[in-house]
């Protein structure tokens, strides 16, 4: 029983990172129907920018981290402006190819600049500190990640419900033409969406970096985040968060009870099986596009 609860805690800790990536993907998919495979690499670049500022230029952490987040938001907006907006006839396949292309460019740039070896990210809190609650262990960093994930979820919920920009994003998603007629500059809204999404993704990247930092680190959590978003229906923020924690918990329970070897695979197997039964995810209504 103790083991079980500890695994549950580990699962929730792992799920927080997935949740951040999942939410980042949902934000973009919600407004522009683009599955953004470059999400992880946008976070990767922001992380390495933070690393550069801390190590090379010796900036203090409280300046470097916010600056990295601002950089991520700008990067997202610039990518949307420079690449996505230029697509002539956007189809899902075309957008997948374009975002994968961006992913490869960003990843290539980072690993060209920094090489493939592991870097040590200076972080105010050591990843090996841990809190002991009763009989359970959880590292401080994981607690922070959990708190950040939940805060981001709350802030995004409020953002989409109560701010003008958030409402404009929702309107753009529901009916772009009507939104334009009502005076919403949909292209700017798309740009803002990418900036916001890159910001959320980058916060996940920065929180991962103290544990593992090398150019390939983003693939796995990004794909799991994507899987979580799909599990939650791809358009629902709470769905993505729920899917992320579900995946994290399933993964850790599977790793503990069945086989540690196949732990990282089980998330994808779950996704494939689940999609057979609920083809639009758990939280979205299934709708079929008409001819």
């Amino acid at each position, binding site marked *: 029983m103790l083991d079980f609860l500890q695994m549950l805690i580990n699962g929730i800790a792992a799920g927080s990172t997935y949740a951040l990536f999942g939410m980042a993907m949902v934000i973009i998919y919600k407004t522009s129907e683009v*599955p953004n495979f470059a999400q992880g690499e946008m976070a990767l670049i922001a992380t390495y920018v933070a690393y550069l500022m801390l190590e090379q230029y010796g900036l203090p952490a409280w300046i470097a981290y916010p600056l990295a987040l601002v950089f991520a938001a700008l990067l997202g907006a610039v990518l949307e402006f420079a690449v996505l907006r230029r697509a002539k006839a956007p189809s899902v396949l075309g957008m997948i190819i374009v975002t994968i292309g961006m992913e*490869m460019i960003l990843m290539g740039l980072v690993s060209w600049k920094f090489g493939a070896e592991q870097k040590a990210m200076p972080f105010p809190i050591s990843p090996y500190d841990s809190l002991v609650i009763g009989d359970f262990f959880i590292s401080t960093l994981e607690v922070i990640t959990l708190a950040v994930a939940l805060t981001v979820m709350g802030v995004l919920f409020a953002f989409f419900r109560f701010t003008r920009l958030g409402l404009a994003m929702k309107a753009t998603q529901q009916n772009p033409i009507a939104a334009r007629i009502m005076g919403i500059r949909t292209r700017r809204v798309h740009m803002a969406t990418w900036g916001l999404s890159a910001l959320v993704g980058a916060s996940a990247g920065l929180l991962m970096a103290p544990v593992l930092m090398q150019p390939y680190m983003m693939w796995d959590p990004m794909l799991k985040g994507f899987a979580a978003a799909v599990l939650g229906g791809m358009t629902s923020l709470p769905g993505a968060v729920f899917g992320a924690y579900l995946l994290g918990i399933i993964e850790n329970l599977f790793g503990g009870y069945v086989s540690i070897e196949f732990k990282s695979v089980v998330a994808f197997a779950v996704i494939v099986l689940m999609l057979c039964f609920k083809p639009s995810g758990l939280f979205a209504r299934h709708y079929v596009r008409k001819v």
Partner: protein
Amino acid sequence: MDMKRDYFEDVQLCTSGTVVFWLAVLLAGLAVFPFLARNYYVYMANYLAINVIVVIGLNILVGYTGQVSLGHAGFFAIGAYGTVVLMTRAHLPFPAALLLAALIAAAFGFLLGLPSLRLEGPYLAIATLGFGITITQVIGRLEFFGGRQGLHTPPLTIGPWRLESDRDFYCLLAPLTVFLCLAARNLIKTRVGRAFIAIRDAEIAAKTIGVNLLVYKTLAFAVSAFYAGIGGGLYAFVLRFIEPEIFTLLMSIMFLAMVVVGGLGSILGSIAGACLLAWMDLQLRNILSIPLLGPWLEQLSRNWFSITGVSNIQFIVFGLIMILIMLFEPLGIFGVWLRAKKYWKTWPF
């Protein structure tokens, strides 16, 4: 393009004397190639041929039937491991093992095709991606398939004929590739191919006029997986050694990139795209030895980037190609070819 006046004009392979002539030149060139070229170039030709086979198969699925697949490295791995294991453990002869492995891949393709009946867009992308990753990881961790150490391929014999060098293997691979290209081209011109295209263009409309989605979607996945399986089985013998690290997600992405760069829904485009990107892949692996560009890049890396990561330039190049093709020429190389042809046909005007 050209107007088709009856059915036979649509299905015939060679539309004019010029096409017959160039086809004959191409086949003759392929036939004498291994006797003229150096060994490395024969190896390169084998590598390209395998990419052509897989990409044509993938194009049947992505370009003609309109289903996204990010999991073709999985089918490729099934073909490679299946062939080698059937030969070493079950002692089947090579042709039987290759065919059987490809059929196993096709069966997996059929299984993956079942959920595709209800999935579209990003849902299908993540499902196929998950399938590809799962297959590779499962194969890579089972001792039966050699685990992380990988497997060496057994010596290759077909009846009394021993294939030892790359040149011998080319003699097997080249006719097979030509045959598979023709088969795919003919498949597209049949009732089945027209059903695929109908599904791509409008799924509900296709259903309404009596195309059985269950049959044709799963068939598209199965045929595509069969091609990938054949490609994988042959690839094992080009490398002579297989390990799970080869069959990554990046490989699936590269196959998809080849399809898109070559041109969606075009067999000729697939051949061009596969040859171009696979050739660039081989060339860019030692990018610093390219004349003129190499020294400049080395200087650039020393001053601004790092010299250890210089091989990653190939990702930047591939990413740029993918984005530029998608933004400016969605039909890929085939689209460029079509436009050039149209331009010269009516030239002074």
